[in-house]
């Protein structure tokens, strides 16, 4: 269980939060093709490297925020409310 820094509640066990996955921009639903939409739905880079991901502080302040996390080492840097 890693420690995730919430901008309000400070560092918390990841079990107190929900990982919402890699940050993926949402295409304009009225203009996007089905292929583009499904890339948004399903395709993730999933690198063994730094990713920007969203977390939700479900057990605390209920803020969504992003962090940068190295998926290979679980090192965390940069954190901001989304």
């Amino acid at each position, binding site marked *: *269980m890693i420690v995730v820094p919430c901008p309000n509640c400070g560092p918390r*066990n990841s079990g107190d939060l929900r990982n919402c996955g890699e940050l993926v921009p949402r295409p304009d639903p009225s203009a996007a093709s*089905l292929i583009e*939409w499904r890339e*948004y*739905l399903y395709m993730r880079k999933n690198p063994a490297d730094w990713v920007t991901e969203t977390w939700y502080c479900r057990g605390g302040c209920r803020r*969504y925020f992003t962090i940068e996390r190295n998926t290979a080492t*679980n090192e965390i840097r940069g954190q901001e409310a*989304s």
Partner: protein
Amino acid sequence: MSNRLTAQPGEIIDRSTSLSFTWNGKAVTGYQGDTIASAIAASGVDVFGRSMKYHRKRGILTADHWDPNLFVQVGDEPNVRAGSRRLEAGMEVSTQNVWPSLEFDLGAANQLVGRFLSSGFYYKTFMRPKFLWPLYQKVLKKFAPGGRIHWETSTHGAYDKRYVHPDVLVAGGGPAGMGAALAAADNGASVLLVEQYGDLGGHLLWGNEDQRAHGADLAASCRAHDNIEVLVDSTVTGRYDHNWISIMQRSHDIAPERLIKARAGVMVVAPGLVERPYVFAGNDTPGVMLSGATRRLINLWAVKPGNRAVVMSANADGDAAVGDLKRVGVEVVAVLDARKGESIVCVAGKSRVSKVVLNDGRTLNADLVVTATGWTAPTSLLNMAGDRPVYDATAARYFSNSLPSNILATGGITGDGSTAELEAHGRATGVLAANRALRRRHDRVAQTARSNDPAWDKPAEMADSRTPLNRVPHPECYRSTTHGMVDFSEDVSSKDLIQASKEGFDSIELMKRYTTVTMGPSQGKLETVNAAAVLAEANQVSMAEIGTTVWRPPFAPITLGALAGRIHEPVRRSALQDWHDAHGAAPLLAGQWVRPDHYGDPMEEADNVRNNVGLIDVTPLGKLDLRGPDVSKLLELVYVNKWSKLDIGRVRYGTMVAEDGVVSDDGVTGRLGEYHWLMTCTSSGAGAVWEMLEDWLQTYRPEWQVHVTAVTGGLTSINVAGPHSRTLLERIVEDVDLSADAFPYFSVRQGTVAGVSDCIIWRIGFTGELSYEVHVPSGHALHVWEELLAQGEDLGCRPFGVEAQRILRLEKGHYIVGQDTDGLSKAPTAGLGGLVKLDKPDTIGLPELKAAYERTDLPILVGVQTDDPEIVPEEAAQIVDGGSNTILGRITSSRMSPTLGRSVCLAQVDPSLAAAGSSITVLLADGRRVTATVQEHHAHVDPEGARQRV
């Protein structure tokens, strides 16, 4: 014959407290402070059990937690480690892994057929013929090691968990560990000191008088220090990311085992060293033991380990064992100095060593062989932090290579030294650990919004200026000129390892998996280094080139009970649940909630709603209070239908889909005011819908002004349903005109109910009857509920439960998200038809909705009635092609309808079967096939809605 010595100066047994227990049915007496093994050894027993494969007789080897020969059954608890488990009065201790008895064991015949049990024997012997596999399994189970699980009794009953957040966690309570704990605590850190055995002190406990006295002083200081919490009989079993550390605590007051989860700033790893056996023919004969075992038996428990001893020593600990043996009157017939190349070739004896052959050609009579041939550094916790230890040929053991900044090692695992040197290194490590941990604590406080100005300065970073401990040269003593056991718990010999190498399993990781060496209960603590040495010899390369296997968690076994621990699963109860309990409601666990399933007869309850009036507690319904000028935009986005033109005082039904177009939730939402709405959603989806709304408002639409408040528990929801519901409410609602014209279907009003103001009443019809849902502030809910029952007595008003509601809604054909839809059901499947508006600029899942409505192959939800009205197909019964078994759908809901007197169903079917009047075949669970007919509507009762629109 008793082997108990006269009082020894360092003994930890209390001779004034005798403990009676049984060993294989015979009465034995030990003392308080004994381990199970020491008490049994003191009574004169040599043979404790039989080995796993060859069923060879086995005795004490290490006399500690890692002893592979001391697994016993205690009462109904299997696999107890007699080398470390403290003796308790009344224990019923027996041998494991023998059949039929310890003295006469049929499995010992395996020794004669040993060639069939060599490396990889499972793969070689039991592969063919395939049809014999079940027989092989049956026979092998008979010979499988391990104790007996008693299915009838729970071994322990209670387990517990605990969470701790020490600045510094010290693993190991020897001189270095205690030094580290004291120095870290003196420097302001909170310290958790964890010791595997029953007392602090480590090897000082069985040392000389000065060592014992010094150890006792350090232990007393640790126990007295305000900043140190001491855990004994507890093992650090794993280290995970961000210093998340698991500890198994035994012998706790409130639970025999407790799993502690620690988040430590810095972990100091100070496990000391584990003594390594020497490999020679007969090295597993009872009477062959390690120097540490000899010294512990004599000094801690005053047990005489034998009468005539041969000692092979490569280090000071072996020399000290010679001194201990002589002091207690054991005749030491030879001391072999391994530093000069003297060694043992083999021993003879079955139940006990009788003869010893030396490499100078002599054969000596002896009943005790003591070896002190070196150390295994238990680097497990360092491995778990990413370290890959490196072999040092001069010191003949492994040392850590690189550690992350939140892990520090000290003590024997890092080098050799006197007690003072070990303690000094520990203290220097403790100072460094406190510095790093306090800097981390400062960062943590500074990152927390409400306290981001810690009241103290961040300490300056301290450099690691510790003077390393020396690495004292040690001979590489691994194997004699004969073959013997490398892995005692798995019965793997050096011969097996060499054979495995010849067969091509010549890397340490492959050899481990092929031969199972290091995979037994000792988990490599005794075997790893010898296995690597034998492999290096077979491959004719150096130890450094062989490398090591990776040590993974757990460091010591954890019982499943401790992992499961105390289960914290809170149950939500509505404000009316006590009333339901008191009035005979059958409890139904539904998600987080306990609800009334029925009050005796659900069919009668449903009937009463159709004919009179009933009340149901629907509090678990998710409720969200939405306020702000942009609520309608939010509703437009999250529901598939239109919301912008909903007038104040009206409610509307809406369905939600996820971004992939799959139906995710539904419910009604009412507009209470210009900027005030109340949304309801399914009980199970309440949390997810709330999080989803917050996600949109925080992430994609931060400019929208909407405030979301969850009021599920704050408002108790009572559905008043049935033809008399209006009459009933008119008696207790004061300020709302309930007439059909003034309060039409799908409207909402706020008013006073039974004297309780601020109630929300909306008129909807999940049951298909005229009905009102009353949302009451929960503090007044019981009053309103009881008043409704009292005022409605002459109308036949009675409570109904979830089962009756399910019957009623199925009669009415209302589907339930998650019951009649599943994880693949897109909007067309649910039959939403005209509800879905595809011309909106944005709604969740819009492109998928558009795509779904262009498909013609999606299953369709339909009403179904079996042709035989008495047959109620099971929910999830398959709908199959009449001739073959091709699956064409499934029954999603089914009940006997009290209103119609026949069975009614909802089903998902292939579009080819969706037309009204289609005949379908339902495959029942008992294999019968019955015919059924697709209905025109989902609703079986009143499809026109005449009953609810009165």
